């Protein structure tokens, strides 16, 4: 038995994490997935219905349209993040890595939104952008540009962009710290040859660092995708359980929440007869959407390596 493990040291490295993770993460997910095969409101008895919930979900026109709407918003977050946020994080990380003056301040300041809890962030944004009492509009008025004032937070078409801005603003520091760490991991000898060649500041970034941290970037892309599909707080706080006016800030995770838990509010209301059944069904669909994409990325990236 000992030689079995001796030949496979990786097993012992992976075992502790594997055990804890399987018990506390995988098992609950499997248990929840099973619930999607039942009709259940969380309180009464469960009725087995096989794949009925799934069929119902995709046949119900209203639900399908909600799903597409939420999906489009989640994907929007993902794409905007990859196009705009990740490059900015890389550039900022590079500056910090290169120890520009003020780097400590940059790190703390850019990361600081993470320290503040989401409702407080939204409240402060509201104070800034509110139509009547917001600072931004007041400022515009005071410099005589009153006609430029807009109800920043209320324009329905802008809704999702505002959510995205808030999310990006809050998460800017996270990606940045990742990239700083990743850049610090680049072996010194790669750099030395570049200096000897006389490569400039930006040239070094593009020719040396980017290829070295390519995998990190791809990983961040995947994380952004997962994130877009699972982000919840901002849409919920800005648009309520229904996802805003005409569901303009609805995202996948909020859609799920609404189905599974949406019937609780201070006024009372009715609980849905199949809240748990349908809720877990949507969660499983959501899971598959994420899983398949993740699988594809991992297979492609790994193929490149080996």
């Amino acid at each position, binding site marked *: 038995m000992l030689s079995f493990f001796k030949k496979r*040291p*990786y*097993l012992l*490295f*992976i075992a502790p*994490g594997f055990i*804890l*993770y399987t018990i*506390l993460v995988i*098992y*609950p*997910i499997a*248990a*929840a997935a099973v619930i999607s095969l039942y009709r259940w409101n969380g309180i009464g008895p469960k009725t087995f219905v096989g794949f009925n919930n799934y069929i119902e979900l995709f046949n119900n026109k209203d639900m399908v349209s909600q799903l597409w709407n939420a999906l489009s918003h989640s994907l929007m977050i993902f794409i905007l993040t990859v196009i705009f946020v990740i490059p900015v994080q890389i550039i*900022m990380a590079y*500056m910090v890595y*290169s*120890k520009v003056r003020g*780097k400590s*301040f940059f790190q*703390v*300041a*850019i*990361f*600081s*939104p993470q*320290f*503040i*809890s989401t*409702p*407080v962030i939204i*409240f*402060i944004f509201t*104070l800034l952008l509110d139509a009547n009492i917001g600072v931004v509009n007041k400022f515009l008025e005071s410099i005589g540009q009153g006609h430029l004032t807009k109800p920043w937070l209320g324009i329905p078409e802008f809704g999702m962009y505002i959510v995205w801005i808030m999310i990006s*603003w809050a998460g800017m520091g*996270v990606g940045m710290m*990742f990239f*700083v*760490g*990743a850049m*610090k*991991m*680049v072996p010194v*000898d790669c*750099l030395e040859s570049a*200096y000897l060649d006389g490569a400039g*500041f*930006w040239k070094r970034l593009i020719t040396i660092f980017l290829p070295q941290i390519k995998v990190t970037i791809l990983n961040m892309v995947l*994380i952004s995708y997962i994130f877009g599909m699972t982000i919840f707080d901002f849409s919920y706080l800005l648009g309520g359980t229904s996802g805003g006016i005409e569901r303009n800030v609805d995202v996948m995770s909020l859609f799920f*929440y609404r189905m*599974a838990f949406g019937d609780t509010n201070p006024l009372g209301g009715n609980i849905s007869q199949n809240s748990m059944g349908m*809720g877990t069904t949507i*969660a499983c669909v*959501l899971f598959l959407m994420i*899983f398949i994409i*993740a*699988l594809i990325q*991992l297979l492609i990236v*790994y193929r490149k*390596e080996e």
Partner: protein
Amino acid sequence: MNKHQGFMALVIKGLMWIYSLITFSILIYMIYNSFRTRQDILSNTFGMPKKLNLDNFKKLFVNDHFYRYFLNSAVILVFSLILITLLSSMTAYGIGRYKFKFRKFTRIYFLVGLMFPVQLGIVPIFLLMKNLNLINNHASVILILSAGISMPVFMLTDFFANLPNEIYEAAIIDGAGEWKTFYKIMFPMAKPIVFSICIIMSVQVWNQFFMPLIFLQSEAYKTIPLIIVKYTKNLLSTMDLAMAASVLSTVPILIIFVIFSERILEGVATGGVKG
């Protein structure tokens, strides 16, 4: 090595200063509000305050025994962070450095945790903890949070995989065992990225709301996010305390951040073989 050249760099630096100052001023604004009285915030939201005082903070410490929440959050943070770092590094190392069948499968396996909403799977976990008699005990929260290694494992695996092979082989030839090699040589080489992960996971653990909500049922065990939510739920009537609680919550995380972020940058980047 640190010569920054060019106009572009200057422009970027300038933009970063502006962005940082704006972001930082939001933090300052929150701190400033925490010193105002409720009446002042409601009636005079944007004006100059009549007076500033520490009343909100006094209330939090005396009436609410804020230090208790603080201690609870701290305990959970320390233990969770240690476990997460240890478990995720070991796992990432195992997956990253060794070639074995099911390696790809294992990577995906560990990523699954990010893909499912945590509220749905809570009941089986709750029953588990109930049977272990760990309800209303920090250990339940610590164990659950420590199992959330999906992201760290995912990010760390490639870094461990890319550590130079020569150093590894040299250590083995010198007679060090697998574990010693990992612990004394390979793991320290990944310090920058491990510290980055530590920072990010610290924030996540510190701001965790759902698990403490479900598992910490007595006031004596609750954590800081719960007290913040207590005051942000009815924000208008308790805005002053919400601000003050948020400020207090920020301080320890800020300290951790400063400590770790400096360490990421210090020292030379992982060196090549230097003889």
